[in-house]
């Protein structure tokens, strides 16, 4: 009977679809009294019901808003700007290089583990030697990846060669993993005629189509929406691959980060957003960059599944990226990974980070938390590596590097014609004219122009 009104039952009224903003037409007064089990009522019954409604409890307990039902609350409760506890960090190796007891780390083969370690060592040695070459004036600029070797190599190892990489600039290790040779790196640094970029970009702006690694662009975070677009292309062409894009804590403040994540979630495309939270954006510490709990919490804001990993634990990164890739492709969803690490080197050769951060902080991260050393402990414990192998690897890489640098230094620079090619598919008339003018100038004033550039 109409007398038995039960307001305490929680009702989910399945009559109304999720998209309704307004109550359905059969409701006369515009309010929807929710009664246990009752779905609709006639005009006469409605007026009878109104007399018997108590006035304290709200008649409507939730709002059908696009996107889902939203419950009401009668008290002003503001969600705090941050959680009590920070988001947990995925780590599988302990400080002694042993797998943590109930970790779900993926098993990797000896071959894979040794290649990962060798590449981390190569990256470390490469950074040291190229940095010194810049200090000696042989290379004009360099950026090291010191402290982030695990991120570079382990994430690359978990991907497939068909996955497209949109790097920021601190990820040469991904190229290294895919087979870019030390000579190819050196050629780009020296901008000689064998550089795939034809000498047009500054050092460390590597790019290689055959390795599916897009040319580095100096602008911060512009690669994020591009990675989303490329993932969209893969989704359209139904390819069994994903894209991955890397950026730092600083890059996460840009507008492109926001829109890239937002779009990727709306379009449901297979892209992995890999944030290298290394604590510093040149001289800006993360306390000046954002007040959120790092970047991982932002994933939820956009509807992107996310995880925080220890950026110095190569195995954790490998497992996380492997799983992320699987998720991205099978479920056609973006994934956000935040790796906590430290930029143990300076921002670049144009920076001296001791000016704005304490030396002991740098040293602690560079020595105690060194990802290369940490992974070495693990593979040594497995019996896959030895001190002898270590010194052999390091000296072999050093030798190759010095040969590569010497060879690259001697090679000619790209010819003048390469200044005007590739601006368009075919050089237009005005560029042809400008080239002619330049050549005339070079001929007339040969002593003003470098002699090691082919005309």
């Amino acid at each position, binding site marked *: 009977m109409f007398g038995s009104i039960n307001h305490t039952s929680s009702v989910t009224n399945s009559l109304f679809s999720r998209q309704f903003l307004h109550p359905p037409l059969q409701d006369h007064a515009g309010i929807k009294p929710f009664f246990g089990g009752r779905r609709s009522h006639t005009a006469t019954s409605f007026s009878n019901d109104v007399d018997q409604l108590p006035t304290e409890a709200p008649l409507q307990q939730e709002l059908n808003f696009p996107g889902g039902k939203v419950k009401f609350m009668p008290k002003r409760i503001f969600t705090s700007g941050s959680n009590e506890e920070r988001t947990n960090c995925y780590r599988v190796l302990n400080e002694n290089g042993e797998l943590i007891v109930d970790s779900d780390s993926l098993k990797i083969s000896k071959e894979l583990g040794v290649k990962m370690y060798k590449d981390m060592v190569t990256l470390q040695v490469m950074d040291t030697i190229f940095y010194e070459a810049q200090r000696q004036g042989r290379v004009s600029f360099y950026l090291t990846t010191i402290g982030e070797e695990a991120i570079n190599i382990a994430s690359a190892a978990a991907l497939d060669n068909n996955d497209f990489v949109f790097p920021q600039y601190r990820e040469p290790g991904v190229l290294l993993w895919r087979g870019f040779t030390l000579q190819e790196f050196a050629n780009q640094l020296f901008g000689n005629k064998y550089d795939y970029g034809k000498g047009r*970009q500054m050092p460390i702006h590597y790019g290689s189509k055959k390795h599916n690694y897009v*040319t580095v662009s100096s602008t911060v975070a512009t690669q994020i929406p591009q990675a989303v677009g490329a993932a969209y292309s893969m989704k359209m062409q139904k390819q069994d691959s994903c894209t991955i894009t890397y950026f730092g804590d600083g890059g996460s403040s840009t*507008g492109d980060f926001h829109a890239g994540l937002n779009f990727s979630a709306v379009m449901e495309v297979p892209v992995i957003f890999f944030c290298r939270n290394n604590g510093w954006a040149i001289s800006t510490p993360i306390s000046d960059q954002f007040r959120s709990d790092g970047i991982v919490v932002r994933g939820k804001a956009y509807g992107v599944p996310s995880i925080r990993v220890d950026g110095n634990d190569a195995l954790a990164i490998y497992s996380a990226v492997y799983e992320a890739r699987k998720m991205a492709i099978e479920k056609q969803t973006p994934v956000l990974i935040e790796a906590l690490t430290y930029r143990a080197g300076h921002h670049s050769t144009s920076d001296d980070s001791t000016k704005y951060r304490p030396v002991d902080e740098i040293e602690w991260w560079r020595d105690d938390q060194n990802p290369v050393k940490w992974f070495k402990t693990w593979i040594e414990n497995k019996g896959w590596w030895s001190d002898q192998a270590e010194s052999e690897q390091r000296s072999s890489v050093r030798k190759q590097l010095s040969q590569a640098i010497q060879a690259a230094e001697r090679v000619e620079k790209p010819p003048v014609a390469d200044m005007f090619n590739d601006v368009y598919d075919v050089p*237009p008339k*005005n560029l042809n004219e400008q080239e002619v003018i330049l050549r005339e100038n070079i001929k007339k004033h040969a002593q003003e122009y470098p002699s090691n550039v082919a005309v």
Partner: protein
Amino acid sequence: MASIFQGIGAATSLSSSASFDTKKLQFSSVRSLSGKRASCVVMRSGGVKMDSDSNRIGGRGDQLVTNAVATKADNPASSTASKPGHELLLFEALREGLEEEMERDARVCVMGEDVGHYGGSYKVTKGLAQKYGDLRVLDTPIAENSFTGMGIGAAMMGLRPIIEGMNMGFLLLAFNQISNNCGMLHYTSGGQFKIPVVIRGPGGVGRQLGAEHSQRLESYFQSIPGIQMVACSTPYNAKGLMKAAIRSDNPVILFEHVLLYNLKERIPDEEYVLNLEEAEMVRPGEHVTILTYSRMRYHVMQAAKTLVNKGYDPEVIDIRSLKPFDLYTIGNSIKKTHRVLIVEECMRTGGIGASLTAAITENFHDYLDAPIMCLSSQDVPTPYAGTLEEWTVVQPPQIVAAVEQLCR
């Protein structure tokens, strides 16, 4: 003045939300121009259907002086086109070109705000999402820099996206991606990655759309190396340029004009693609070369009517290609007339007219009998008030006065 203006203005009144009722806007004065379009085929190269009448352009010189628009006499004579052609409005021509290319190449896709189910704010993409699915005609959230970046990323992976800016002015937000990545990546990657995108949208001064929606972005983009810019002005060239832009491997910015979307014209039934780098000879003449593009073409042609009545014979060229300029066509014209007037909608400072003046001075200085005159908008934000807005745009009487001064 007001009456001359009426012919162009009243017929194309629009509201800023711009969903047009196609029935009410008949641009009758353009119809006569359109007849000329079908017969006077300017596309001298680039795989376009040629009419045998085209070589009569020079020969009709005497006839043309008496009629500024020079088409009515031609219409009955021009029947070399085998099919009758079909009439449509400019935005429909754009859509037709877009649809034909999407049909032809499965990699062509569209992205922009409200392009999908809504069909685009100016209806250029109407019906395409229903036909090709909403992944291929993609509605994006409001972040121009980012969806332009997305288009660039997709292009690097082999797709051929068309990125629509709801209004060209919004593409200012995308300047970073357009300048730093779109224009540069083919070059800086050593030719490894190409960016065959088309960036298009309506720009120019509309009917009281306010300063922010009355931008002329061609002036800002013209310096960016690596991109091409074209401006369409008739349904015929709109469709042809759209198709050419999509097929080009370079990034192309296609400038449309808010007030020209409802121009009606009869275009060929056969497929045609125009040359992106060619200018269009609108009206051959002997006394003065008038260079213009987009909406100003119509103001110039209105002025031409008056000029012809006063005994002048202006040669009107729609430059169409804003980057690079078609200096071949322009140069030949200057060598003939020795006087140049540029009529543009850009602001005076740093506009297309400024670059064109420099290019002409550098290349054809010896052929000039008078300094180059350039009529542009003033360096002010476009006011909202209708009368003030009218005064910022070059009007036919100013053009007439300029020609009279040039030809003194």
